[in-house]
């Protein structure tokens, strides 16, 4: 069915819901590359007016990719909670925005299972950045493994100690640097250069040893393909979290070499290990706008809506952590700081609204029109929005993946200006080993015991 909106003498027509949602999306390079973006500023604004009048029930009734053709669509519809949706089914997209702005945290938690990714994406398109922040801030998504992530007033950090050749001493040195700066409560997570099970096993053992030696209330992850982690679990290697990159269509997931059944198999294997004393959230997913288009698997849908569909995939596996890698994919998808900032806020909002523990890799590449100041802006906005976690990369420079993310120092800044605490178990651990004072502030020079307790690094 076509949609129309009249502006003075002009009628703007939109062929279907996918086209309407794409044209209503704040302009970004990836939608232009896909040929689905609005062609004028007026068309962009008209599409938002038109989208605001669409009933939520209509979005639910008109899947953007047919049920028969895509297993992500089937997952979205088969797991939809009609009871939770009943509370909002009478609303239009425009009404829904206003309900969200006035809703309590309890209401948001209650309706989350009734919110499909298309509904979340639709309302985000007519929201300003401040709306995305204020609503996300009210969403509570708490997950547990060896500690508790996502409590109000907290921000966690993934310690990302990557090394270009997976050198164990180099990785350990970066881990100590991060711990000494009070980071690592979300996860200590390595992007490995190698993908052999042997090499992955060595890294898993290394992380397990560090966590045991210092009795750190956190979890480990080696971010390798799910099939490699499955093989590692079969060999009895210490796997806390299963990682996988995921996307919002069956075809895009196929390009990552994953299916929903493969994820289910890995999830069940990790659950069976029962390694989390505080809880059993044992999956870690990464996503990012543009991944479906780059796999030629976008079905004419805008990249932000597809990104929200990836959160529907994540949601069914009750993950500990999910993060969008917002500026990693390059300027052909998100061109500059403005587009990256908007996308980061949208992704965080959509994930939280759907009940997913969303963190953000606040990042950029050197061919994007962005710099550290843009990252400071997005970081600060995400702190205000109650972002679950950010990355901690030594000096913000990832020497393995060749991009710039947020540094350990950046998390200290955010804690200082917004008063954000770490996961409580981790906060207590830092205090017990003498790294922080009663207020959670680092004590100058207090890292000596941590550094000298690393036997593998003896001079």
């Amino acid at each position, binding site marked *: 069915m076509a949609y129309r909106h009249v502006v003075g003498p002009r009628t703007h027509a939109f062929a279907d819901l996918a086209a309407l949602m794409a044209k209503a999306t704040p302009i970004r390079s990836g939608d232009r*590359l896909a040929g689905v973006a609005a062609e004028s500023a007026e068309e962009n604004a008209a599409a938002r007016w038109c989208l605001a009048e669409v009933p939520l029930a209509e979005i639910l009734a008109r899947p953007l990719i047919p049920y028969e053709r895509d297993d992500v669509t089937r997952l979205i519809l088969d797991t939809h909670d009609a009871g939770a949706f009943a509370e909002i089914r009478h609303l239009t997209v425009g009404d829904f925005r206003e309900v969200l702005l006035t809703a309590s945290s309890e209401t948001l938690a209650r309706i989350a299972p009734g919110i499909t990714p298309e509904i979340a994406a639709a309302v985000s398109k007519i929201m300003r950045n401040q709306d995305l922040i204020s609503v996300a801030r009210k969403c509570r998504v708490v997950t547990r493994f060896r500690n508790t992530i996502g409590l109000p007033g907290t921000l966690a950090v993934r310690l990302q100690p*990557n090394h270009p050749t997976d050198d164990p001493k180099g990785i350990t040195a970066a881990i100590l640097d991060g711990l000494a700066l009070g980071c690592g409560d979300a996860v200590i997570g390595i992007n490995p250069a190698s993908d052999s099970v042997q090499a992955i096993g060595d890294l898993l053992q290394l992380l397990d040893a560090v966590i045991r030696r210092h009795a750190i209330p956190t979890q480990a992850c080696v971010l390798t393909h799910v099939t490699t982690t499955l093989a590692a679990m079969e060999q009895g290697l210490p796997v806390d979290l299963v990682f996988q990159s995921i996307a919002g269509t069956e075809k895009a997931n196929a390009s990552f070499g994953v299916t929903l059944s493969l994820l289910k198999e890995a999830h069940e294997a990790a659950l069976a290990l029962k390694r989390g004393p505080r809880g059993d959230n044992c999956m870690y997913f990464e996503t990012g706008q543009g991944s479906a288009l780059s796999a030629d698997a976008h079905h004419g849908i805008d990249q932000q809506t597809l990104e929200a569909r990836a959160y529907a995939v994540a949601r069914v596996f009750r993950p500990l952590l999910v993060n969008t890698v917002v500026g990693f994919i390059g300027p*052909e998808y998100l061109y500059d700081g403005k587009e990256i900032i908007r996308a980061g806020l949208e992704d965080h909002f959509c994930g939280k609204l759907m009940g997913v523990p969303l963190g953000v890799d606040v990042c950029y590449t050197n061919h994007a029109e962005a710099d550290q100041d843009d990252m400071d802006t997005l970081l600060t906005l995400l702190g205000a929005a109650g972002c679950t976690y950010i990355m901690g990369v030594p000096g913000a420079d990832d020497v393995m993946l060749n991009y710039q993310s947020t540094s350990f120092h950046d998390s200290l800044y955010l804690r200082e200006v917004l008063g954000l605490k770490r996961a409580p178990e981790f906060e207590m651990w830092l205090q017990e080993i003498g790294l922080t004072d009663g207020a959670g502030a680092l004590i100058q020079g207090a890292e000596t015991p941590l550094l000298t307790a690393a036997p593998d690094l003896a001079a």
Partner: protein
Amino acid sequence: MSDNGPIWARLAGLTPARIGLGRAGSGMPTREVLRFGLDHAQARDAVHTPLDADELLGKITDLGFTALPVASQAPDRATYLRRPDLGRRLAAEDYAVLKDRAGPFDLAIVIADGLSARAVHENAVPVLAAFKPYAETAGWALSPVVVARQARVALGDAIGGALDARAVAVLIGERPGLSSPDSLGIYLTFGPRVGRSDAERNCISNVRAAGLTPDRAAFKLNWLLGCALHLGLTGVTLKDESDRVAIAGCEAPPLPERPGTPA
């Protein structure tokens, strides 16, 4: 953290990552903020400095090659960055120019700006100079060297196809990292034609003074080209085993047993 200075210095020697930086309150020390800013500035300049095609064409001619300039369909850098598809297409008028100079040739060499003109300015001519004696020894028929502006790797497919070359080698500025703004990549593709996938290429990366030297890169290119022309393929099924070869001009290796994996 001054008391732990020696420990941090030792740890910092274990990784190229920026560790043990110290801090000023929650921020980084001034020295580190400025160092990061300089590295980012160099990477940005590498992306945005235009290719000096005239100077490059002159140096190529000085080496005894003939040279031809072409452009992609991306008219400027801003478009190039947003539209990788245009950077893979040859400007229409240049297609005709290349058709007029068509071979058959064994190899077309393309020097392309890619994402770092600096990498090309510093490394392309040294690679070409080092490769020339190998090509002469092997007796390969080389097309004119093509200098391409606003180009992606796959532009080489169109160029190699138009020139009727059996293989194309694209020397192209790689996406600059914070500590490697000057890195050149070399992509070799057998049977160049529009529509080739990246899985059908072999890549020699990190060609720069502090990485793989131009002499080593030329040696590898010669080895890979010899294998490619002998086997009639490039890509995931052709493994770079040039490091195990003592002398240049190798025998082609037996076909690997492992099936290729998609890129």
